[in-house]
């Protein structure tokens, strides 16, 4: 059976990770992507988590979250959050940050707090955790969304949990965020989006089998597409095999996998 768009998303995210990079990885699919990258082409990545764990090799068990202490199995470093968030991330030592963005808008602002009015939410979500730090402080930030539903891509989020470019890149700079921070890419089942100089998201590449109009229809605004939209290479048999092994592993670890 060919790869599903969700499987392609995991692989596309993994391919964006360079071997040897120092990464700050957030909760959920970003952790699985980094693990897939480590098993494929990037065995030498070093991952830091918000609680201070440094994971520098393949753990025998997939953690259910960054705070699942199987991530610290034989770790070389177990520190704390001041180290992780500020000494490593804010300092610029971390080369790439990966954050799940279940609801994300035109300017890369992420909502993981509340849908609807804050005081009377229609849907209440978990809140920030370290997600604000990843987007406020992280260099080379990659956002990940497993959704293709328009409700996941509103023109403007109801609550900015993790600031993207706010109302545009000028605003982010003016408010005192460091240069070179802010989202650089979004990976989802449709393909890859990037951000222009004004901080607006545009479609940059599609997964094989996704049409441009299909992709554009998933967004809650008229998203622009790059001229000559790239088509991402299909997974090889080996890559798909690794992705599927890790999905079986994830299921054993109580991850809820998307249907189909």
């Amino acid at each position: 059976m060919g790869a599903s768009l969700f499987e392609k998303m995991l692989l596309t995210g993994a391919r964006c990770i360079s071997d040897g990079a120092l990464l700050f990885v957030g909760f959920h699919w970003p952790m699985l992507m980094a693990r897939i990258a480590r098993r494929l082409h990037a065995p030498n990545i070093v991952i830091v988590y918000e609680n201070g764990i440094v994971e520098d090799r393949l753990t025998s068990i997939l953690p259910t979250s960054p705070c699942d202490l199987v991530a610290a199995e034989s770790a070389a470093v177990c520190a704390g959050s001041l180290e992780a968030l500020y000494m490593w991330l804010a300092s610029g030592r971390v080369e790439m940050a990966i954050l799940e963005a279940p609801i994300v808008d035109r300017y890369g602002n992420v909502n993981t707090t509340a849908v609807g009015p804050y005081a009377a939410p229609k849907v209440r979500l978990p809140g920030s955790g370290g997600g604000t730090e990843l987007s406020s402080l992280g260099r080379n930030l990659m956002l990940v969304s497993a959704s293709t539903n328009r409700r996941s891509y509103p023109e403007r989020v109801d609550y900015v949990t993790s600031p993207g470019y706010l109302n545009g890149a000028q605003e982010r700079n003016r408010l005192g965020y460091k240069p070179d921070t802010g989202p650089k890419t979004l990976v989802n089942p449709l393909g890859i989006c990037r951000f222009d100089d004004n901080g607006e998201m545009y479609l940059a590449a599609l997964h094989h089998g996704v049409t441009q109009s299909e992709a554009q229809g998933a967004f809650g605004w008229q998203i622009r597409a790059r001229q000559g939209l790239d088509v991402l290479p299909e997974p090889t048999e080996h890559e798909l095999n690794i992705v599927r092994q890790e999905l079986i592993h994830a299921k054993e670890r109580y991850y809820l996998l998307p249907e189909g």
Partner: protein
Amino acid sequence: MSTGEKPVLSMKEAVGRHVPDGQELLIGGFAFSDPTALAHEIIRQRRKDLFIMKTSGGVLVDQLVGAACVKRVLSCHVWNSVGPVPAHCFRRALEQGKPHPIEIEELSYGAFTTALTAGACDLPFMPTTPVQGAGHFTQRTFLPQKFAVVENPFGGGPVCVVPPLKPALGAFHVHRADKYGNAQLFGPTGEMRFAMAACRKLIVIAEELVDTEVIRQHPEATVAPGFMVDTVVVEPWAAHPTDSYGYYWRDLAHHALYGEMSRTEEGFQRYIDEWVIATGDHAGFVRKLGAERISELRVRSKRYW
């Protein structure tokens, strides 16, 4: 806060003595080392109107909210980290006001960490993660002064700052403690070192009570010196179903069980009746888990300490 020997209390005594209705309480742990045994005892003693501060609320805060013990929550995250599935009671409280409405105030994890660090060091404020334009910055409820922006006095533009946070009482899960209150936590420590030092009164909940000579073998693991600690509680498996580095793993099945049962108010009540009320105390809870489960969860790899 003093030197010398500290009272070693049962959880029941500690809650009875230190956690009256309306208490302001920072609970340690960040989805590991969450002292669930403390929450269960608070529920057994039917406390009301608590002001709970917890960086990552998890199942622990969800249970306190569902059991109607809480008036206010200050947190950066409240969810069941296995699945992940929602913290259903937390959602019901905020979406539908059930079992009663709660007040929520939010910080990012970094802002929470830096506010506690400022509190621990008695600094007037501390620079933190830039959050201008984000929801936490604009939405303020019972902590209207949770963020401010100042001009960098050394040049270079606006700086986001947080005020010091000094919780009236803190309760933290640790691995081991001695009778003087010297408390050790191995593995990652999240914000806990700073959070402990920020609290005006401090309870440590230890997996085991050990001789000071044992503490001396690894002084680097002492996260709270005895002189900061007021009370010691000894409670094995206190952090279950979260994990405790070097002691036990995260109980995924139990997280899933709780996630499933707490989907409805009735199911949640059944969980509380079966696992909290009927068990009587945490030793009863551990007995209910059963020897087989306990054995599966126990960490067997050799500890370095």
